């Protein structure tokens, strides 16, 4: 099992969700976050007063998938979230030791 953590542009969330659902993957956890990478921030001007905003709104999406499906999932996320512009985000993959479905007690791949 792997945990895929994807940081994406907020308006791409629905496309990425659809792409993952099409693969047969069920469930995800989404958080509204702020951050920056190479895109850095931007400048806002209110009545002539300029403020540098370094943290931009992003979506952090977390999804745990069976190891066999990781590559397909990564490809789907990349395809759906890409605009080609700076600031498209990043995907991190990390190992998961154990999973339990609370309602039934099923474990690991059966719990996904």
């Amino acid at each position, binding site marked *: 099992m792997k945990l895929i953590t994807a940081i994406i542009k907020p308006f791409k969330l629905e496309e990425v969700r659809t792409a993952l659902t099409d693969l047969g993957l069920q469930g995800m956890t989404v958080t509204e976050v702020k951050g920056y990478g190479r895109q850095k921030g931007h400048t*806002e*001007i*209110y*009545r*002539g*007063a300029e*403020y*540098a*905003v370094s943290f931009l709104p992003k979506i952090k999406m977390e999804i745990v998938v069976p190891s066999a499906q990781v590559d397909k999932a990564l490809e789907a996320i990349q395809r759906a979230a890409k605009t080609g512009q700076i600031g498209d985000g990043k995907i991190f993959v990390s190992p998961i030791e154990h999973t339990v479905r609370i309602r039934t007690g099923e474990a690991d791949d059966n719990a996904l």
Partner: protein
Amino acid sequence: MKLNGLIRTAATGAATAALYAWTALPAFAQDAAPAAPPPKLDSGDTAWMLTSMALVLMMTIPGLALFYGGMVRKKNVLSVLMQTFVTTCLVTVLWMIVAYSLAFRTNPDDFYNAYIGGLDRVLLAGMGKDTLQGTIPESVFMCFQMTFAIITPALIIGSIVDRMKFSALVIFMSVWLIVVYAPICHWVWGGGFLAKSGVLDFAGGTVVHINAGIAGLVACLMLGRRTGYKTENMAPFNLVLTVIGASLLWVGWFGFNAGSAVAANGSAGMAMTVTQIATAMAALAWMFAEWLVHGKPSVLGIASGAVAGLVAITPASGFVDPKGALVIGAAAGVGCYISATGLKKLLGYDDSLDVFGVHAIGGIIGALLTGVFAVQAIGGTAGVLEGNFAQLPIQAYGVTATIAWDLVATFVILLILKLTIGIRVSEAAEIEGLDLALHGETVL
């Protein structure tokens, strides 16, 4: 004052002479004829003034409260709503107790009446159900004027947000109403010396806007800048609130300007027309100026421009025609944009939400241009464009007198407060935010 009177008399000499000749005839004839009947209640006028009172109250709560509330940081939103609300309540009570009488009643002493009204309406004594003010009940007139007295100190809040002690604010608003607002209101609208010298102020360019704007400048200078000014991000909490607030101000302003005709008549209709035109023009002027300078037309910019236009057309609204309104709007949009951005940056004061930049500058632009664009056929007084050059110095005189008293009195009130209870919250409270530090609540 006398000099101004002379200049004015000389310039309008011919017109005045003609007027005297005309009024003299009925005066002689009066020996035989019965005196003119006293004014009777007009239900149309009364209905419109009841409506206007509600519209102008809506300008302060929730209009101004939201306009300002949306512009501060999240940690101070509730404190701004609270400051606006408490000012509404304080002014209402003090207006009833003494301020209405001081502003609008005639002082039995002629000399003092030039500066301050009488005390015969303390606690509204003698104001009955059937007491009339012109063609409307005096109770309606008193309430209508109360809403002007509410919004004027409330406007000052924009310059002191994020850092003023609540206790000091409560005392300041109360004292300022009686020491600054009531006399200046009496000078212009209560039969005081500015009214007698012919200053034109239809709905409160001097009384409300220059008055609040100058007090705001004094207050922000006395308080000092917000902690973190120019180093921290002080971007507005929620401009949706600000746009709702600006829109409520715009709508409510028809009660303010058209209501200042104190009648449902052609004067009110024309005041409404020029208000709408000047506001739209000023909003566009600010938007285009900002677009040109900063590359983007902003939402805060167009909303601020609309308020600037409303301010500037206020003194002019019963006196100018729609073409004059267009010019006044354009001048206010660009003038207030420059003062709220360039001038503020240049001078370095932290007039946080631009009370001086929009209300004092917009008020001055409007008060002076009233003297230029006044049309005799509309408000009974001609301006510079119709050959009455004397009106402009009279307007400048009104502006100067207002600024002088406002500046000195506001400074003294705040100085006394600063030396006694203090006017600024602790730095820790300021950093934590006034919502939690002063009121024990948070917005989200």
